[in-house]
């Protein structure tokens, strides 16, 4: 009973915290900080997407930067050339990346482990080269600039124009919350559990009657769609896309976010995206050392905390629990009674 009450409080607390997040811009006067927070939100969406396939299904992809790029370029091309707004471009970007994700998944997921990594690496490189060389469509190395801002949202007499970085925050936050919600729904569904079973033991999963290949392709498609959505938001938020953003480095960055935060954890995705985005911005002060320090940070993280920050949390929680049990055991033994849980 007491437990139930406790959980109720937590739920209310959670709702309050989420509500409070919407009022965050009120406390921030520096638009640059707002800009970084918005970037973090986009990266959270990306790492949530990649975590679906890496963390929950156990299939490593180093081509997700390309899906991010495809989403961004679809939105940029449609927005710039045809004047489409974010509301049309976003579903289209998601559809296109999902379709390409499906195709790549269909081909690539027949391969196992390191071969899949190679296939996604090749795919990422191909897409980057397309961005770089299809000058008529993508602007080549110049990229596409002047992508329009999302149209003003009108709610009765309230108007929400998109001019400052503060204005984008609620929009991006809604999409991130939506992303978290969808992720939770997926991982707690039968489909999500099937994915976890595949991650733990593919053969066993197959023996239990899980359609392994179909499940993997489906998850890969959803994962790509997440990145597509992030791409469309990125294009309309930054108003400029250029190919080097979506090169191999981006795929590695997203993967690192997932690794540092902790695979198979929503909170891990959020932490990983926050740490990497902030550190990459802070290191702008020393451009010559930026990539060096950034790389060192990643090596240290991978070497000493291979399960990521959330893994660290889990370990310490386990230890705490064990200590509690042992303390209880000791206390009980002292009283000369047998221990029952």
């Amino acid at each position, binding site marked *: 009973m007491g*437990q139930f009450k*406790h*959980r109720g409080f*937590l*739920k209310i*607390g*959670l709702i309050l*915290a*989420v509500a*409070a*997040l919407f009022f*965050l811009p009120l*406390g*921030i*006067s*520096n*638009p*640059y*900080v707002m*800009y*970084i*927070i918005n970037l973090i939100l986009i990266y959270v969406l990306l790492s949530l997407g990649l975590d679906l396939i890496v963390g929950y299904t156990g299939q490593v992809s180093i081509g997700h930067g390309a899906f991010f790029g495809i989403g961004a370029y679809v939105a940029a091309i449609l927005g710039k050339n045809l004047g489409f707004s974010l509301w049309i471009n976003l579903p289209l970007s998601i559809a296109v990346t999902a379709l390409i994700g499906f195709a790549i998944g269909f081909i690539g997921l027949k391969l196992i482990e390191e071969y899949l990594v190679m296939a996604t690496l090749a795919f990422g490189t191909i897409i980057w080269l397309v961005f*770089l*060389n299809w*000058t008529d469509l993508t602007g*080549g*190395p*110049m*990229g596409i*600039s*002047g992508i329009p801002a999302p149209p003003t949202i009108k709610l009765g007499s309230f108007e929400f124009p998109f001019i400052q970085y503060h204005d984008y925050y609620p929009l991006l936050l809604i999409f991130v919350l939506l992303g978290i919600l969808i992720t939770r729904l997926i991982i707690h569904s039968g489909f999500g559990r099937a994915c976890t079973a595949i991650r733990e033991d593919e053969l066993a999963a197959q023996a239990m009657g899980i359609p392994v290949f179909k499940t993997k392709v489906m998850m890969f498609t959803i994962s790509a769609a997440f990145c597509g959505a992030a791409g469309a938001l990125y294009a309309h938020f*930054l*108003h*400029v*896309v*250029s190919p*080097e*953003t979506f090169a191999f480095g981006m795929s590695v960055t997203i993967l690192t976010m997932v690794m540092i935060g902790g695979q198979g954890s*929503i*909170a891990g995705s*959020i*932490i990983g995206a*926050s740490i990497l985005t*902030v550190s990459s*911005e802070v290191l*702008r002060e020393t*451009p*010559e050392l*930026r*990539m060096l320090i950034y790389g060192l940070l990643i090596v240290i993280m991978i070497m000493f905390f291979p399960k990521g920050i*959330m893994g660290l*949390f889990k370990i310490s*929680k386990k230890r705490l*629990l064990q200590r509690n049990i042992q303390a209880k055991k000791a206390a009980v033994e002292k009283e000369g009674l047998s221990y029952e*849980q």
Partner: protein
Amino acid sequence: MANSTKLIGKKMVMFMVLAILLVGCSATNTSSGNGSSASEGGDTIKVGLQAPMTGDNAQYGQDMKNGVELAFKKINSDGGINGKKLKLIVGDDKATPSEAVAVVNKMIMNNGVKAIIGGYNSSPTLAAQEVSGPAKVLHLNMGASPELSKQNNKYLFRVILTGSVYVPAVMRYMSEEKKVKKIAALFENTDYGITMYDAAKESTKELGVEFITAEKYNPGDKNFSAQLSKIKTLNADAVMVVGLYNEVALIEQQARQAGLNVQFFSPDDSMYSKQLITLGGDAVENHIFASMIDLNADTEEMNEFKKLAKENNIPAQANTAIAYDAAMALAKALTEGGGEAEKARDALANIQYNGITGPIKFDKNGDRSNTPMIMQVQKGDFVVIKESE
């Protein structure tokens, strides 16, 4: 029981993450907030440098940084801007549009820079000026693309000459002095390369020359044999390369290896760097280009600059001199502006200043009206072969 503890644990973690996020955000806010308020209330004026500090074009960025630092040192020791010291914030744009936007955003919003010097490359500058223009931040760039004249941005000024001045000058020289008729173009696939080629093409009719092919490459490419062998089969009289020195040096070395021994030329002074000769060696000998500056000129300004550079142990490169000029002109405008963005802009628009690169004044597009000279690489040095008109 174990299950519910797990759930609670999960919720707790979620909550903690949100809390951390909130605290983290407000913490960064306070620290950076202090930073920007100090710049406004303090006795410094911040100026940003948007230039490639890492990657293939890092040498350009380093040269520009040297020049601006040299100028700021001189200005600050002479009393600064109305008593305020100039402080340089360096932003690495990696010669790419999206990084340029990100770094210019950061310099304006977080560091509170009042002006930006740079960028060097045209595409990043075109993207970044869309941020600096609405923020009313003076942007003194070194891009050559004629496209930069058409931006309708009152705060955008160009401290080098526009491509639509460089290109006809070098084309005229090639046609009249070198008597070339058939030219092959090889240019980088960027705003800079494409618009310079377009400008060159425009001048062909009047001069009676023609472009027999237009080959492209991407910045960072290392192998040009496909383009060069195609040019070789077409028997061109000369090859116009529009690019930066690191690629041009490679192109001319590979052209030698391919047996393509024709006159190479480039439209502007992005060639004017010791690095071209270091990297290209004998292969870049005789390379012709148009330039707005001659480091061997015996003028009062040039001698003073070279003396200053020597005292501070800085190599006197062309881009160092141009950036130095930009910083000096900017300082003059900021002094006259007295801290007001619009006044400083008007002061810069009407500036009359004799720099190392000649008289500095801007037309209504923010372009300079000087005429270039023609230079050639001769025995590992840059020699003027035709004075400016």
